[in-house]
């Protein structure tokens, strides 16, 4: 699993993950993960369900804190700062590291209010209209909604809702965006739009995306991490592990691990 070197490319790293294990009470969801995540690149997490990839991504902006009994071992350095340092305020972490969820979750308010909420809680209340426009434009939604910014966000289509969620995330000017299966509830057309959007956004943000869709990973990502579950000897516990972490092109053409190849070619998972 010494694949770390492969990604020591020229670009800077945004996360350094060192020997991270996450557990809920007795249950270890994922263990001993080591990886460096490149800045201004798209990194995809793939693997069968239950392999802990969603759990892992939620440790990157400390969303895991919200689940009682979650324990994170090891260190996650974010641009040199240990995210789990006692002094670090998770609220500030989430302000810098945004997150887009599996199911579009706009607030049941107007389109505009969905964006301004994040601005308000982050004291970014200057030039609000401009910021709203900029975020919606960046999320490729402006043209579709500019005439009804005061419409309830729940009236938008699923794909539009998800782009609105991306817009409100980038409105608060994070450095990194985490996406937890952002297209799993969307149709192929809406999925394509989001993938195109990611290619635009990556110029400005570092993007981590969890996906169960391998085509998506191969199409959209620069780096790819493959996780799987290992069953303990007594057969009772299943724990997620990182199998291979590589450039996406390498991963999908010439994977180093047999397991990866089996998964990618659809022989298991």
């Amino acid at each position, binding site marked *: 699993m010494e694949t770390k070197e492969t990604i020591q490319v020229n670009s800077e790293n945004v996360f350094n993950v060192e020997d991270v294990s996450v557990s809920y009470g007795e249950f270890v969801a994922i263990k001993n993960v080591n990886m460096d995540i490149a800045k201004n690149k798209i990194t995809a997490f793939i693997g069968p369900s239950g392999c802990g990839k969603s759990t892992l991504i939620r440790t990157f*902006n400390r969303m895991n804190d919200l689940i009682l009994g979650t324990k994170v071992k090891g260190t996650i350095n974010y641009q040199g700062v240990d995210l789990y340092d006692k002094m670090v305020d998770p609220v500030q972490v989430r302000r810098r590291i945004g997150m887009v969820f599996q199911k579009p979750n706009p*607030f049941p308010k107007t389109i505009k209010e969905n964006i301004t909420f994040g601005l308000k809680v982050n004291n970014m209340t200057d030039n609000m209209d401009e910021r709203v426009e900029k975020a919606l434009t960046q999320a490729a939604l402006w043209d579709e909604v500019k005439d009804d910014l005061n419409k309830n966000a729940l009236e938008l289509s699923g794909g539009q809702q998800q782009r609105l969620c991306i817009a409100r995330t980038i409105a608060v000017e994070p450095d990194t965006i985490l996406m937890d299966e952002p297209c799993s509830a969307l149709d192929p057309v809406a999925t394509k739009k989001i993938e195109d959007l990611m290619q635009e956004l990556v110029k400005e943000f570092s993007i981590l995306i969890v996906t169960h869709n391998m085509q998506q990973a191969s199409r959209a990502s620069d780096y790819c991490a493959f996780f799987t579950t290992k069953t303990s000897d007594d057969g009772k516990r299943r724990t997620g592990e990182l199998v291979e972490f590589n450039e996406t092109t390498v991963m999908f053409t010439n994977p180093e691990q047999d397991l990866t190849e089996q998964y990618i070619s659809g022989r298991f998972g």
Partner: protein
Amino acid sequence: MLLESTEKNMSNKAFITGKKAENAIKESLFLFTLYICVTIAILTLMTLIYDVLSTGITRLTSDYEVGLITKIQIDNPVDFLTSLDSRYPDRAGIGPAFAGTVWLMIIVVSVTFPFGTGAAIYLQEFAPKNRLTRFIELNLTNLAGVPSVIYGLLGLAVFVRLAGFGRSVLSGGLTLTLLILPVVIVASREALKAVPDTIRQGALALGSTKFQAVFRQVVPSAIPGMVTGMVLGLSRAIGETAPLIFMGALTYVNYFPDTPLSGFTAIPIQVYNWIGYPQAEWKETASAGIILLLGLLLIMNSLAIFIRNRYEKDF
């Protein structure tokens, strides 16, 4: 089809069809019993409403008699609503009691809403899952089952005597507040529970504090449900009679309360008083009071249903 053909093959056909007929009778008898039970419940409600309406309506409709004897009457709803109580059943109005009920509603809402929703928000969103929290929850369930008359005794000891508010509309309102607080807390918690977790996560992921996520996103989404719970709790409060008896509401009060420390009477209390008079004419007056009370409850319940349908969001 299959069943029929099997039956045909059976030698003991007569027995089976006999059994079947017997079964069919039992089935219909059983269903008939169920119908009867449901019907009795519905019929009782209709009888009650019909009886009250038919008796009380004469006191609420304008009825200018063209006859030899012209009764001096104030036979219309506005007079009934605004007049003072009287020794004569056909002149007795429900004015002071109506005003008293409005006073009670104002006090109950202004105290119950902040405390009820506050407690619900704490328990649902912030409280740690520990023994103390479970104890509070158990407490609330039990309080909801305490007979209302006991709350009256509590109000008498605490508000009337200890706090020195006397037998006033303030004591009455606070007592009713204690009575419906558990109900309102439970309803508000349900409203908060109905807000999906994704809303909380969405807010937190944008860098809001938990406090901001709860108060700016979760609570506003739950407000319709909370208001509905409040209105239903309030409608329970205004129908309550027993706890107010200790607030001196039964002593003859025939004036409009003007401060929170005024003596008062309330619609159900006034109705109870009128029921107590043996003369038949008072029945009409009592019925008219009941019509008003049921009318108020109908309005409030409709309001609750309206809010629920109008503002309830499908996430």
